[in-house]
């Protein structure tokens, strides 16, 4: 059964590592939805978050093949355990009239998004959330006319399992 998986990969933070990972993914014919990369608390280590789809066998191969790379330190499939997932979206929407602008701002409020730039005819908004939330937001803005859009791809982090108190469910489920 094809399922969406979020795979978190800790890698050496040096020359050529991203090329190695993307070359592996392309060369083995794996499909990925997104890949994001950035430094961690340890400047010698980067974290890559890969969102991919596949059945159990394919996901097992992806994690094993990633583990084979010398520059890969740790591979974790986040999907199976509680985790927080976030993606950032920047979107520029056409707002030819004040009427449209206020309608867009209403949507922005509901999604707890933030206006980051505004002009006479456009408005640029940032929003974070999991994939479903971002997708829903884009769907709501679509009819207004999206001029430009940039998504970061997901980043994720495992939850601490110290009790329900730490799970800010109202926040994560907002909108």
């Amino acid at each position: 059964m094809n399922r969406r998986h979020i795979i978190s990969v800790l890698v050496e933070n040096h020359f050529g590592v991203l090329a190695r990972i993307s070359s592996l993914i392309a060369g083995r014919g794996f499909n990925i939805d997104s890949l994001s990369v950035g430094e961690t608390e340890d400047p010698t280590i980067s974290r890559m978050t890969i969102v991919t789809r596949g059945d159990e066998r394919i996901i097992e191969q992806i994690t094993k093949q990633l583990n084979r790379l010398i520059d890969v330190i740790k591979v974790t499939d986040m999907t199976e355990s509680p985790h927080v997932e976030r993606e950032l979206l920047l979107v520029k929407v056409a707002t030819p009239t004040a009427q449209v602008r206020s309608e867009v701002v209403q949507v922005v409020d509901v999604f707890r998004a933030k206006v980051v730039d505004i002009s006479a005819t456009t408005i640029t908004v940032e929003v974070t959330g999991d994939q479903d939330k971002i997708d829903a937001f884009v769907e709501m803005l679509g009819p207004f006319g999206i001029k430009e859009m940039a998504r970061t791809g997901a980043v994720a982090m495992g939850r601490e399992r110290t009790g329900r108190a730490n799970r800010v469910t109202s926040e994560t489920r907002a909108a």
Partner: protein
Amino acid sequence: MATTTTVQPIITRPASDRSIWRRDMEGKECTGAEIFVESLVREGVDLMFGYPGGVVLKIFDELYARRNQISVITPRHEQAGVHAADGWAKATGRVGTVIVTSGPGATNTITGIATAQMDSVPLVVFTGQVSRELIGSDAFQETDAIGITRPIVKHSYLIESPADVAKIVRQAYYIAGTGRPGVVVVDIPKNVTTEKAVFEWPETVSIRGYKPTVEGHPKSIQRLADAIAQAERPYLYVGGGVVLANASEELMELVNKTHIPVTTTLMALGAFPGTHPLFVGMPGMHGSKLANIAFQECDLIVSIGARFDDRVTGKLSAFAPKAKIAHVDVDPSSIKKNVKVDYPVVGDAKWVLQELNKIIKPRQPNEWNRTIAEMKKTHWFKYKPSTSVIRPQYVVEKIYEMTKGEAIISSEVGQMQMWAAQYYKFDRPRRWLTSGGLGTMGYGFPAAIGAQLAFPEALVIDIAGDGSIQMNIQELTTVVQHNLPVKVAILNNGFLGMVRQWQELFYQRHYSSTCLGNIPNFAKIAEAYGAKGLTARTHEEVVPVLEEGLAYPGPAFMDFLTNPEENVFPMVPAGKALDEMQDEEWA
């Protein structure tokens, strides 16, 4: 006065010999080239294959200074240099070394690198690179060696500073030779060879992202032992991993305790004696009928260091329908890649077999053993003898008889590779050098050179075809230059035989580009280079030519003009199940 030498001596000394270390370099400022060559010496490199060029001049100058410690063999094409290092590594079990220049020097190594990587051969390939400040400027003989080789190496490095040279050389050899072995490419910009840094030798290697699992988990080994104890019809499927792990003795101990029939893949011929009663032959497309039927009939496959390659399994959905599968491999990604596995064990073949032998319940031969023994009488390799033509199988059989199975055999790729695998019985590992995974024509001759350099006293024979020998025939110069007594037996049918066979069987005999037409006189070519050249035109001439050629004290080409439209049988056509084998019509 400086003396010049045209041929460097071939050095033999133990890899652990520390008396030649230049201790005076420690803690001192040295050039990158000095550090580089000293690091090779400390890694135990005593022989390498090197083709010089502009950006590696400084390194070759340092190699000249240390020529009594490292022999540099110069092939006549960089591809052959990599294959030679591959053959050397396969025959010795050590990590092979190659150095080439930038640009075309680096690109010429690609086929050799891919060949070695596919067969898990440990190599370190050093490529020269233009100076750091020129990288990316399309400089003369600049190419992105790291980028080009990325999908076909185990790992690669670009050295950015002379201070990193020793550490990276050390890591490169460690990575190439441990876990599932493979190729490491190290790209060295010219400025790194000339600039200076303080030399410090790292005694130990630790790489946080690289910790091969050698010790198989005791529970998984116990489950494997239990599965073998419960099986009625167990079957050992042995791959190249057993050769790489030097685990033949442990395998023999397991078989002595359990009497399980054994098949060895093309890569593993010799890991288990080819003359042993429980040996059922090589499996797969051109394997024995017995080995393939055993897959279809067994109830437990115990795979050790094999990878369920498509040439072995045939049509995957029809493969081994009655069997549970146990899979021992040092590379976790090999397990469950192609088939569903019931008993996985991640670990080194030698380690796992040692542990398994401690707990395995002795098993007595049963009905399954009797069935196998009975079938072995009829389901073995055979061909119709002929005296009117030279049958290539006959040549291989004679080579086997005359060398008493003691030779090191390399092969090119195609029909003669399969005949060599079918008719030469290997009783010991590391005697059979072939390109199994990539299937590289032109591999055998340089690989034989590598093996001959490793074992100067051994009889080394390349079983070649008239097509593939021409892919690296220029290495005749190398064998003559170093007086390496490599023998080449050319099974000359005037065709690219294996492709022609497929055209005959599946493409209505449309011999598109496979008829080579003008075949050169190989004996004369050999003579022109200064080697011995012999030709056998009739069946009767086969044995005399072999006798003369094999006894000749130097390099020799033996050209056998064989039956042109000979086919390799039995054969499982691509996409068919293992029990749908075709055989020669008369059989």
